[in-house]
């Protein structure tokens, strides 16, 4: 995964960059699987590796897939990144160790969810119970954000009157599909955009 990230910073061909970011998402999904987060794993595989790759490919087809070659490597940025990383590593020394059952995160409300959600809400999957019932307002807010983003996309590129802008219609359709995170159409959209 780190190797994928490294090559993402080096590559010049944007098409390869987008494909590699899909691979990166898929690695992340596998990692979530190992860390017991099955729901997150398949959402990441479908949405992160699927839909966002398609969206980026659509963008590339409307712009360009070649990045300009630059001469000097940005040394200031590199130094800044390493300094920030060093500070963050220093910050981890006080963190609870991996898998520690006594970590503060496990002492709060999560235990109650695990003990009671079966009888209070019903479904055996605790993540579903919390998502739809205990933290239902979060999910409502999430749909509001996705709706706002879809409206924003429509305002920015959907209603362009002049025909010089390529594929304006195709983009609109793609964003509407994204709104309901509708997975199976991802393949046909890819066919359409290529």
């Amino acid at each position, binding site marked *: *995964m*780190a190797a994928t*990230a490294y090559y*993402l*910073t080096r590559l010049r061909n*944007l098409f390869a960059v987008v494909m590699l970011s899909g691979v*990166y998402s898929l690695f*992340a999904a596998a*990692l*979530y699987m190992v*860390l*017991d*987060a*099955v729901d*997150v794993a398949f*959402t*990441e595989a479908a949405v*992160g590796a699927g*839909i*966002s790759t398609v*969206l980026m490919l*659509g*963008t590339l087809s*409307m*712009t*360009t897939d070649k*990045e*300009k070659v*630059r001469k000097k490597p940005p040394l200031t*940025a590199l130094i800044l*990144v390493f300094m920030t*990383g060093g500070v*963050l*590593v220093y910050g*981890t020394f006080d963190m609870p*160790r*991996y*898998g*520690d*059952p006594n*970590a503060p*995160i*496990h002492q709060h409300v999560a235990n109650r*969810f*695990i003990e009671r959600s*079966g009888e209070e809400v019903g479904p*055996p*999957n*605790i*993540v579903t119970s*919390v*998502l739809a019932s205990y*933290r239902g307002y979060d999910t409502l807010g999430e749909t509001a954000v*996705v709706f*706002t983003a879809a409206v924003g*996309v429509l305002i*920015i*590129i959907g209603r362009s009157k002049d025909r010089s802008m390529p594929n304006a219609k195709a983009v609109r359709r793609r964003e509407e599909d*994204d709104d309901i*995170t509708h997975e199976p159409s991802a393949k046909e959209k890819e066919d359409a955009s290529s």
Partner: protein
Amino acid sequence: MSWEVVTDLLGLLNYWVVIILMMAGFYVVIAQDNLVKKIVGLNIFQVSVFVFYISMGKVSDGTAPILEEGIEVYSNPLPHVLILTAIVVGVATTALALALVVRINHSYGSIEEDEIQVIEHDEEEIA
């Protein structure tokens, strides 16, 4: 350095992986001029935060948080819920950012930040 110290520090490895990924994304965002690549960098950064949350929710010898007879230890379901929401929101914001890139390319004919700045500067000179 004794063996206990080494195993103790190995417990922090997940955070260090997160930090490496996060810094890779950060570097792409601040050092590259191409706008699409900046968005990919933001995605890398975002996924590193997701991994951070999920790895904090893991309990040793625990299983996925799905109720089952005879299982006592579950991983923490709360971070899973938060990240589930965050992934979908992340794709929505990515779509918005990509729409902006398409629009910028339409107006300026370029998706390189430095070229766009040159064009803007020239337009100010004329005006």
